[in-house]
């Protein structure tokens, strides 16, 4: 344990995803030695990310306005919702140009090791969306596109269980072929595109 502000900083950094205690320490001492101007820019960026970015009130994606560009786009199919873990996954699916529906961003995956359960994810909001009509149309299909790893698979199974009770709703999962133990974001466009078009009902 270090004394005072340094330890506070290490503790805060250690809470970030993917940052272990060792890295937190390394980053903290790096910042300690950095030029004031560099620290200033970082401070600025941190400030803005909270003030300037909002999350879409429909899908939870990062957005510049209360409702994001995709959810405002009337050409997109409102009966189709693709469920992903993170905003970066929306970008990955968009790049494939295979998908013309809308998204729902969960904000993560079930991950008990990090203290993430269903209540920490935007699952309730998803169920609400499915229950409500949009432009007089019901949601017809949910495509589960969580990461093909342990946490993503568990989240998918949990969603399938929750969605079973909606009559007439088709639930599909991206076709396998995605590298197991992977991250949707890192799947190449062709593979992800194929997984999207070859999705199967679960």
């Amino acid at each position, binding site marked *: 344990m270090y004394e005072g502000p340094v330890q506070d900083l290490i503790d805060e950094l250690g809470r970030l995803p993917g940052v272990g205690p060792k890295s937190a320490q390394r980053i903290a001492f790096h910042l300690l030695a950095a030029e004031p101007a560099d620290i200033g820019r970082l401070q600025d960026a941190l400030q803005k990310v909270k003030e300037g970015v909002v999350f879409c009130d429909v899908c939870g994606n990062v957005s510049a306005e209360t409702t994001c560009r995709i959810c405002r786009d009337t050409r997109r199919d409102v009966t189709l919702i693709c469920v992903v873990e993170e905003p970066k996954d929306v970008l990955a699916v968009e790049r494939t140009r295979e998908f013309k529906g809308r998204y729902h961003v969960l904000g993560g995956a079930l991950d008990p090791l990090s203290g993430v359960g269903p209540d920490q994810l935007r699952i309730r909001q998803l169920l609400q969306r499915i229950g409500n009509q949009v432009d007089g149309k019901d949601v017809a299909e949910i495509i589960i596109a969580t990461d093909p790893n342990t946490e993503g698979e568990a989240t998918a199974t*949990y969603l399938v269980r929750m969605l079973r009770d909606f009559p007439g709703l088709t639930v599909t999962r991206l076709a396998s072929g995605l590298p*197991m133990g992977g991250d949707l974001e890192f799947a190449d466009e062709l593979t992800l595109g194929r997984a999207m078009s070859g999705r199967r009902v679960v």
Partner: protein
Amino acid sequence: MYVRHLQVSDFRSWERADLAFEPGVSVLVGPNGQGKTNLVEALGYVATLGSHRVATDLPLIRHGSPRAVVRTAVVNDGRELLVELEITAGKANRARVNRGPVPRPRDVLGILRTVLFAPEDLALVRGDPGERRRFLDDMLVARAPRYAGVRSDYERVLKQRGALLKTAGAARRAGRSGDISTLDVWDGHLAKHGAELLAARLDLVADIAPHVAASYAEVAPESRPARIGYRSSLGESQPEGFGRPDGPRADREALEAAMLTELHRVRPQEIDRGVCLVGPHRDELELALGELPAKGYASHGESWSFALALRLGGYELLRGDGAEPVLVLDDVFAELDRGRRRQLAKVAAAAEQVLITAAVAEDVPEELDGARFEVRHGEVHSA
């Protein structure tokens, strides 16, 4: 198969070492602590992505160096593959095959197969159940590399489910209800991956048991017969007969169902204690001599013979599968009496390739005549 070439940099005590091997016998000789085991350990690492001596990678990297590199050329069926592994402490390793990067280090598994017998193997008989589970899992991976993935998937689910049980248990003790709405989901995944691992282990035990019994009888003809058997944590839910040479092949779906039943039964205890009580991580490979368990009963010599029989049984099994593994005998002749030495020498002399380390050349039986390397003061000279 055989190892044609081994090169290490900053691995263990070696700043750099370069050895060319041929099929048949190669003996590394040199005084204690000169780095003989370190060299065969490097080969073991290429074969299993682990060390037979330590559980973490840090000790494998030469003190003061950021990373270790192991390069080895393996010839299998006349085809040569060059495997390169870069080991960095606390970070993901990197691997290349024939100079092209592979997505994950575990993609190199299966290129080199070894069976390594070392003084540490006494722990197979006398150590914790975890030692024997690791023996089985390493064999599974040697037979079919995809089991490396099955095992790591299982371990990940196990960790996640354990964390959920811990928080649920803590909440309950504090008088709160604790969210276990996802426990069924984790149960399902644990049973799915667990049953796959369990089925594979049961079939492996069924396949290897006759080889182990035969090897033991040869190594220690005067002793009682050796038997091995798999005891799962499924208790009464475990379907009968799997894991025995005369039994049916393990049925993954039946095991998955059994595991779910058992998980359901012990759930209150699991939440109470905050640990996973069911699954292949709790299983035991039981070793018996005659009517008695080997652990706690077998003599020192019997324990050695049993450990050797497990390794030789593994060797015979892999040989029967097709690609003959490289046999590595690390400093073991000094531990064995004359009869056992002769038995081991007989198997080793017939191997496609055997790599032997010994502090004194006289410890190696005469029939194992072959290439000799002197290892001393951080250098290797072929003698």
